[in-house]
């Protein structure tokens, strides 16, 4: 990372842990073989992947054979939702998700709607939390799949997956959870959570970009149709030669995270409160989302300032105005609008996302910089009204 930056965009991507990088290099030096090859070199690659699967399964408390490697959370979400809905197509065509999901989920639902599926979009409360009763109210006899994210990528709001999944389990509905922002950051125990499908990705918790996984529970009726075709790999669910070095790194990142989650959470909590404490008295500041959400994310709006100018005035802070995947769009965040924010407030929102390497000094610097930037822009504006 360039030292000229103060990087506070860990929800978008994280730096690769040096131990992960070492593991990837080591694996690459051991073998270059295709894991599907039956010769010794191929079996070595297969073993490296099996080790990584065990490491990731350990993080999630799942069986290693429940994991399907993908290119990342976007592909995992596509495979889970499109593959799950199509697998159950003959039983019914009603599917459910939230308005505050990531585009990797909402766009798949939009696509399925074009294919004739009937989509219900449930809304959260003003803090971004989905009431299980509101969720249950939209379910029907023909509901086949629901997808709800664990940790929201823009606000850090944590949904009650246990309650929501329990409702789905009682009704035989396939329940998918986008855990891209949760895996490796908060405790996830798939041995107890009523979850059928879960998307995870390495680069959100100090692993490499370009590798993810989909958890598919090992129980009857829990299956997805493939969305890619071209080989019999991974039980014909996801074809393609596996990227062994990326998977080795993913596994190592998972093993490290499994031992660090509590320490990381404590670290992030202290940083977030320091950051929020440094800006909360500015006036006209709104904290978006549930304050008890994931501590690595702080989303705030400032009355009287324009988001793009705020982002530039905040430099050298590297922060986001919405999800990074969507940050080139000038449209106000649909997630924040679903929380009841006006277009103007949503457009001024900044997402600070903190990470393992973030220091207390960086949090203080960010708070000072934010104050300066907001005051400067309010000073430029005609009647900021604050």
């Amino acid at each position: 990372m360039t030292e000229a930056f103060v990087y506070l965009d860990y929800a978008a991507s994280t730096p690769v842990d040096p131990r992960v990088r070492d593991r990837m290099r080591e694996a690459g030096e051991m073998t270059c073989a295709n894991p599907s090859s039956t010769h010794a070199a191929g079996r070595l690659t297969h073993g490296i992947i099996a080790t990584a699967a065990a490491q990731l399964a350990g993080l999630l408390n799942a069986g290693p054979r429940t994991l399907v490697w993908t290119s990342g959370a976007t592909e995992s979400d596509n495979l889970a939702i499109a593959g799950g809905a199509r697998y159950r197509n003959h039983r019914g065509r009603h599917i459910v998700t939230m308005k505050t999901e990531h585009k990797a989920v909402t766009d798949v639902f939009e696509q399925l709607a074009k294919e004739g599926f009937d989509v219900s979009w449930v809304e959260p409360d003003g803090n971004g939390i989905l009431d299980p009763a509101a969720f249950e109210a939209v379910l029907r006899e023909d509901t086949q799949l629901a997808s709800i994210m664990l940790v929201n990528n823009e606000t850090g709001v944590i949904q009650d997956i246990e309650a929501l999944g329990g409702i789905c389990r009682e009704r035989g509905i396939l329940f998918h959870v986008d855990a891209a922002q949760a895996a490796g950051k908060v405790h996830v125990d798939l041995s107890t959570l009523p979850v059928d499908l879960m998307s995870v990705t390495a680069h959100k918790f100090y692993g490499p970009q370009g590798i993810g996984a989909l958890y598919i529970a090992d129980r009857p009726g829990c299956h997805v149709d493939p969305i890619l075709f071209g080989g019999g790999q991974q039980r014909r669910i996801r074809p393609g030669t596996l990227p062994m070095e990326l998977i080795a790194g993913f596994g190592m990142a998972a093993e490290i995270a499994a031992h660090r989650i509590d320490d990381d959470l404590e670290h992030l909590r202290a940083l977030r409160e320091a950051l929020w404490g440094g800006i909360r008295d500015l006036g006209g500041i709104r904290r978006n989302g549930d304050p008890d959400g994931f501590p690595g994310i702080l989303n705030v709006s400032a009355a009287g300032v324009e988001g793009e100018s705020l982002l530039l005035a905040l430099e050298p802070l590297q922060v986001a105005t919405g999800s990074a995947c969507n940050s080139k769009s000038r449209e106000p965040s649909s997630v924040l609008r679903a929380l009841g924010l006006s277009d103007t407030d949503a457009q001024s929102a900044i997402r600070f996302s903190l990470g393992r390497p973030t220091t207390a000094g960086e949090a203080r610097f960010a708070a000072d910089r934010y104050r300066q930037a907001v005051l400067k822009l309010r000073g430029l504006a005609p009647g900021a009204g604050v």
Partner: protein
Amino acid sequence: MSTDDPYGPRVRRLFAAPVHAGRLEDGESVDVDEQDVRLRLSAAAAAGRIEAMRFEARGCPHVIAAAEAACARLEGGPVSGLLEFSGRDLMENLPVPVEKTGRILALEDAVRSLGQRLRDGTES
């Protein structure tokens, strides 16, 4: 390494230090609220020349930089300069991306409207 910076160095410089930011209480002023831009231009003129020109803006960096550049260019010049002001030069020189053309046209409208007010004030 290409950083694909959406702001040129001139936009960054003008945005960072807009010396014409502010309001002239004794001059004429015009308000614009459209195209995601809230803008107030004010100017004081004497003997057909712009003695001072200021802006207040809530908008993107390109709008703030363009307003600053317009004030710097027009201040000290004839009032007729406001009436003939075109945002096209700013679009090219700052530069401003084409998708923000509407915002620069809002600035252009504000500058010309301010010129009309100053001219009308002088004539009445």
